[in-house]
């Protein structure tokens, strides 16, 4: 085995002592400031769980009901705290159950450290009981992975894992530890990892590029900012606000960028993408300078690339070099952390206002209001709509809750109608679009920020993918609030079937269980609401409840989310109805 890249000599933070590999894992977690682990035990990770018995006062272990739940919970925890979420799982099925969450974390740049037990080194490659090539399976979806077969490497690998997971463009890391390593004794010392020679997580901002970008912004008649997740990751919310205000630039948000810019700010113009707002989409094809910050021009945002922002000069602020020019050709690329780049550019940008340009967005808002929002928020009759329910949640929580969504129509309705006022309060599965994400992620979010109101908004389909985590929520008394928007359909798929497959509702209708009874069966308070008269009261009861609470809201079965850019179409052809 090759030695790992040498870290620079820095002071040893821990005293040398003889411990087992299993104990070393826990000591390393403590060195990294970890307080919570989401996990599930099994044979190959038993030594670590055994060692954990003696550390329960310092390391809280949340026993999930399925390993996928552990990953999403860790993601929720990471997204609201900015610290890596930590997961334990055993070998084989335990480890393979992590893959969905790891893939989700990878594409949404969420820091996570997964520790899996592995069969003993001597058994590697023999198809031993519960042996799986976790390294091979997870390689395409991790930022880094490593198998430890020599206990002496353990502290260094743990330190590297945390450094890699949280620095630069964050992501999931998986460490696979053989059982013999967990049992082996060695002399343990810990040194935090501060650099790896083959890894430069924070590129230096290039002064010439900053000049060029500032020049473009200062000359722009119709500048336009697209704010992405990178702003939240780098903590550049203030800098973004300053840039927008100083130069008078309208700001739109991607799905994962939501809550990076206050929704009630006069320069905020809305949400981008397939089910985004009307103005933000069409104006992309009319601006003269597009300033994309910490976003990756996902196809759900760009639609048909051939017609996307062809008229605009594009400034792309992005920490991951492989994202630059990947989908959209840039005029000026700022390969840097968003906060560093914005800090450098701010003093070079002239004071300005673009009142006429902003007014164009407001005109679009009016069109969207008349055609869509008005009806979506104040339906004259019929069943409850997702949009109005979200709007009530937004009002009752004053836009200050952490809102966790699953995947589907309810997710798009929430992204459109929840008015985020506080930062880091949007937790959703963006790039992977993982149904089953929300319930465990809400659990992790509440654990990460117990002082905040956490509201999960989930479809009846996605809820049933990980509903067993109600058991975890009950056992650990995690006071998250859960709203199921029940339309008895896999709503988003049904919408596509209606619009693009002549209403052939193939395999999307669901006969659902009694969600309230199920939830109560887990020992969690629950109720159900079906009509407009009672919705706000029901929501208020849920929010006021001291502890976890599930509210099932029966909504209109065949509601559609509009506007919509059909897949592969130009964003200029966004449909309002």
């Amino acid at each position, binding site marked *: *085995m*090759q*030695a790992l*890249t040498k870290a*620079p000599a820095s002071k040893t933070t821990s005293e040398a002592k003889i411990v087992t590999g299993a104990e070393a894992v826990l000591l390393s977690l403590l060195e990294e400031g970890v307080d919570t682990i989401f996990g599930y035990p099994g044979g190959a990770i038993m030594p670590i769980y055994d060692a954990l018995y003696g550390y329960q006062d310092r390391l809280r272990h949340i026993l999930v009901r399925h390993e996928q739940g552990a990953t999403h919970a860790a993601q929720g925890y990471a997204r609201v705290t900015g610290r890596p979420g930590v997961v334990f799982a055993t070998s084989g099925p335990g480890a393979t159950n992590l893959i969905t969450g790891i893939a989700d974390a990878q594409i949404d740049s969420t820091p996570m450290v997964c520790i899996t037990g592995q069969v003993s080194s001597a058994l590697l490659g023999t198809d031993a009981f519960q042996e799986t090539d976790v*390294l*091979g399976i997870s*390689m*395409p979806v991790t*930022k*880094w992975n490593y198998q430890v077969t020599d206990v002496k490497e353990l502290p260094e690998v743990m330190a590297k894992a945390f450094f*890699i997971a949280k*620095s630069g463009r964050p992501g999931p890391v998986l460490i696979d530890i053989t059982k013999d390593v967990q049992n082996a004794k060695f002399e343990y010392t810990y040194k935090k990892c*501060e*650099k*790896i*020679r*083959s*890894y*430069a*997580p*924070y*590129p*230096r901002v290039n002064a010439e590029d900053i000049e060029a970008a500032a020049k473009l912004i200062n000359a722009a008649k119709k500048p336009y900012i697209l704010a992405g997740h990178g702003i939240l990751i780098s903590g550049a919310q203030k800098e973004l606000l300053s840039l927008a205000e100083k130069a008078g630039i309208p700001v739109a948000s991607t799905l994962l960028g939501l809550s990076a810019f206050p929704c009630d700010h006069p320069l905020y113009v809305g949400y981008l993408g397939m089910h985004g707002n009307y103005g933000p989409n069409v104006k992309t094809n009319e601006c003269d300078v597009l300033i994309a910050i910490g976003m990756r021009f996902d196809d759900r945002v760009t639609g048909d*690339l*051939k017609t996307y922002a*062809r008229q605009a000069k594009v400034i792309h602020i992005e920490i*991951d*070099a*492989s994202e630059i*020019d*990947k989908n959209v*050709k840039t005029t000026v690329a700022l390969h840097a*952390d968003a906060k560093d780049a914005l800090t450098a550019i701010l003093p070079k940008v002239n004071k300005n206002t673009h009142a006429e340009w902003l007014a164009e967005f407001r005109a679009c808002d009016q069109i969207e209001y008349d055609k869509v929002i008005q009806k979506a928020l104040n339906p004259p009759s019929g069943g409850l709509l997702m949009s109005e329910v979200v709007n009530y949640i937004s009002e009752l929580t004053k836009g200050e809750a952490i809102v966790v969504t699953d995947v589907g129509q309810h997710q798009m309705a929430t992204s459109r109608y929840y008015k985020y006022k506080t930062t880091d309060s949007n937790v959703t599965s963006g790039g992977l679009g993982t149904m089953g994400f929300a319930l465990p992620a809400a659990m992790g979010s509440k654990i990460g920020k117990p002082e905040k109101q956490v509201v999960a908004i989930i479809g009846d389909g996605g809820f049933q993918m990980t509903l067993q985590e109600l058991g975890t929520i009950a056992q650990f008394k995690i006071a998250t609030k859960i709203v199921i928007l029940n339309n008895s359909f896999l709503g988003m798929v049904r919408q596509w079937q209606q619009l693009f497959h002549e209403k052939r509702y193939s395999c999307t209708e669901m006969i659902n269980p009694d969600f309230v009874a199920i939830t109560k069966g887990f020992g969690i308070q629950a109720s159900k609401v079906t009509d407009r008269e009672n919705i706000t009261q029901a929501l208020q009861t849920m929010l006021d409840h001291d502890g976890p609470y599930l509210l099932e809201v029966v909504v209109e079965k065949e509601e559609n989310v509009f506007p919509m850019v059909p897949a592969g179409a130009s964003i200029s052809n966004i449909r309002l109805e």
Partner: protein
Amino acid sequence: MENQNGYSTDVKLFIISVLTENKSGLLNAITIIFTRRKINIESINVSESEVSGVSRYTIVVKITREKAEKLVKQIRKLIEVLGAFLYEEEDTHFQELALYKVPLEPFLNDSNNRIEKLIRDNFARILVIEREYIIIEKTGRKSETTKLFEELKQFGVSEFVRSGRISISKSKRRTETFLKELEELSASSMRKN
């Protein structure tokens, strides 16, 4: 032809040269980047470079420049990759090695020295002579090693093997210097907070 981003849509040979830490699993990590995009690798060669602990990969692919550039960026993203560089054929000096196994018989009866002449004319050489066969070795470009193969066929080639391409760029920079710069870069690219 050009596409919307101004890239030529022509497919041609590119050489991707990668420097990595010499560590298990990295070959897999690199090749899945190609697999995922369904890009076929024409040839690949890996071995330790002049710097101890550092491996050099020479990967040959036939794709468009745009795809090649994006691939290189993806390869650079791997944590243990020290550097990845994209070259066109003319930016490099390159060679392949071919071995040909020919029965000894025709060689012994080669009164006109035809085989020997072939070997000489092609700048090849005899590597070993065994009781049943001889092994001829030739370094050169694919067209050259193929030409010799075609010419040897008449004597019966029982086995023919060709290595992946290895290449050295025409750039003057030393690997050591590059690694030193890299160390400085990784040290300076830390966050202040």
